[in-house]
């Protein structure tokens, strides 16, 4: 039962400690059960339903659906649109997470400084995050309008007309345009989370570093960043999951883009379910989305392990 992370003091496990371990485990269950009871209670049926449905075909009401094994999965895997959507999902996830994180971290550092009006400023920077997705999408579509949108008009006024583009009408650019909207909506999350973590860095540590003669860059790198690390790990992981699952933003801004150029896997699954009404196939698609997200998380954790060593990963 002992692993590398075991407690100080329990070298072996004599009977007394084992009993304590048992009591400990059940004692802790009381802390965990309410939360996990609710979580798994509600989500168990939907997840199982999706999994089971994905192995059956369609049948009219009143008839048992035929068991088709993996053929739904095969149908999706052989659909070039699906492969394209996977590629779009990867690009989308990488871009959105990297940019939101960068902007969020920068703003968190900036707004960690206690200047007069900092509280209001923080809330102001959060406003994009607070806006409902439909409202943001309407505004951004307005701005992205190829012929009359403020972005193109502004670029032309500045003499940068060559940069003007069909932001959501040009298949080569549509995914990028949707990404910008999502970054605008998401950086607030990083900002607030990292700000919370920055605020929790014990002042003594920073003061000790100043006394030691560290400059601000060194202070950041060696004192603050390690303190932030668990929170950074946490928010990056969460956002990778959310970004790869994102549906709202892309759907309203581009609808999957001209010629499926901005269709990610969640949109693919949605269209399969609600436009084409092929629900078992959509269920298979959602399981595949699950697998893709797992792969992304796995890659992330593996990279983290290599960088930081086993103990710090989770």
């Amino acid at each position, binding site marked *: 039962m002992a692993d590398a*992370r*075991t*407690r*100080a*003091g*329990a070298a072996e496990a004599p009977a007394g400690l084992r009993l*304590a371990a048992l*009591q*400990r485990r*059940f*004692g*802790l*269950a*009381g*802390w965990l*059960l*309410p939360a996990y009871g*609710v979580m798994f209670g509600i989500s168990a049926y939907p997840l199982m339903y999706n999994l089971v449905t994905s192995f059956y075909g*369609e049948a*009219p*009401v*009143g*008839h048992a659906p035929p068991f088709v094994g993996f053929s739904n999965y095969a149908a999706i895997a052989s659909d070039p649109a699906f492969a394209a959507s996977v590629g779009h999902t990867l690009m989308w996830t990488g871009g959105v997470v990297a940019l939101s994180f960068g902007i969020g971290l920068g703003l968190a550092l900036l707004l960690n400084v206690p200047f007069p009006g900092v509280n209001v400023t923080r809330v102001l920077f959060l406003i994009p995050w607070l806006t409902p997705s439909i409202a943001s999408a309407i505004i951004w*579509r307005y701005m992205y*309008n*190829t*012929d*009359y949108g403020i972005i193109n008009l502004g670029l032309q006024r500045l003499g940068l007309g060559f940069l003007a583009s*069909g932001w*959501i*009408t040009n*298949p080569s650019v*549509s995914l990028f345009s949707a990404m910008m909207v999502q970054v605008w909506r998401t950086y607030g999350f990083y900002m607030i989370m990292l700000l919370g973590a920055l605020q929790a860095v*014990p002042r003594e*540590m920073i003061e000790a*570093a100043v006394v*030691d003669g*560290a400059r601000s860059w060194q202070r950041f790198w*060696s*004192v603050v960043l*390690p*303190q932030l*690390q*668990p929170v950074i790990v946490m928010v990056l992981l969460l956002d990778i999951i959310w970004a790869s699952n994102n549906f709202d933003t892309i759907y309203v801004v*581009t*609808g999957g*883009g*001209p*010629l*499926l150029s901005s269709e990610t896997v969640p949109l693919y699954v949605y*269209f399969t*379910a*609600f*436009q*084409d*009404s092929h*629900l078992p196939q959509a269920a298979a698609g959602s399981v595949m989305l699950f697998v893709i997200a797992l792969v992304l998380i796995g890659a992330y954790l593996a990279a983290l392990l290599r960088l930081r060593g086993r*103990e*710090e990963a*989770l």
Partner: protein
Amino acid sequence: MKRVRGTSKNAIPSTPSLTRRRVLALAAGALGAAAVPALRPASTSAAASPSKTVSILDVPINDDLTKQADGVFSKYTQTTGIQVQVDRVPYPEWPDKVITLLNSGAPPDTYWADPAKYPEYVEKGWLEPLDDYIAGSKVIKKDEFLPTAWEKVTYKGKIYGLPKDWSVRGAYYNEDLFNKLKITKVPETVEELKQTALEVKSKDPSLFGYMWPMKTPDTWMFEGLAPIMLPNEAAVVSADGTRSTFNSPAMAETYQFFVDIWKAKAAPEQGMASTNQDLYPLFGGSKVAMMQTGFFVIKAILPKIGPDHYNTFVVKGRGGHYGTPMSVSAFSIPAQAKNKDGAWALLEWMYRPENITAFLVNPSARKPDAPENATRFTDPRYKPFFLAAQEGGKWWITPNPGITDQMRIVLETSQAIVLGQKTIPQGLADGAAAIQKTLKS
């Protein structure tokens, strides 16, 4: 510099004290939290016995009509004692919610339906045939309704919806712009429509001549392609629903219309990512000279956004005929509804001439001389629409179970052609092959 270790690196031997108390406290807290909502007065879901309530899913049209509809429902309750549970779904979410509910095995007793989906839904066994109800009804008389309306709600010989209203597409033009640009002739054919659009662009490059929405299969098919395709007598699928007729000279001519206008930049590029609603402001702001859409905009939208002077027309195709997509909306009863008889009784109430106006913005599916239609469409600008409808408003695709796949293929093909990624012959050939595959199954 020494790095301070966080808690994860070291675990704590826990002491087993207070655990039972803690568990109880948490359990009590959770139960309490769950109980609080239960203490609040419950909502009116399924409180009464099943036959005393009937549920309907409807889409609100505007505030006035919603108020009127509520009045209709409450009068029904007063008269019969049956509660009406109305689910008003915002229009953008209407298709999704219908699919969710029909899939769930617990659908509403009746809902506002899209007859284009009937083949698909009937094959899935989701809809109840209404022939018996209609035959035995004293309020709904078959011959009071337009024959084309019945046609549109019939699939494989059975009726699956009660037609509510109908709509077709027609063209609008901005009179002030025409005068300013000295365009004297209102187009009468598809070819003239194209030439006029190009003329507008050449006379004033800051304007657009014509526009169409190309964002989703529905909006493209109905508002963009069909108004040009049908006068040209082109078709996606044959009349018997077995062959793809997508690759035809008439269809190629139709696509040439769009390609020529797009190449000349006589249509706003924004249309590629827009629905018609996104585009109306361009017409209202006098940036686009012509557009095609339904006739509801005359009352519902253009008064709000302009332009000040506009008029309507319809165009003939190469064969000298009008052609326009006709859509009929209807109320259907799901096969798994719990209170089908109650649903029918409610529909009979709603369809009384004095009540049906609360649900209409377009002409009702009854004949033009029906009381609810007689006084409502007197503006002369409605005339071309009635003219086109008379010549036969058509299905934009012959109903068959693969219709949504086919519309998606049509959209992708169209985008590829207009964006120049495929030539017309190539695009039509690929599209026809893909459509043929959906017909085989």
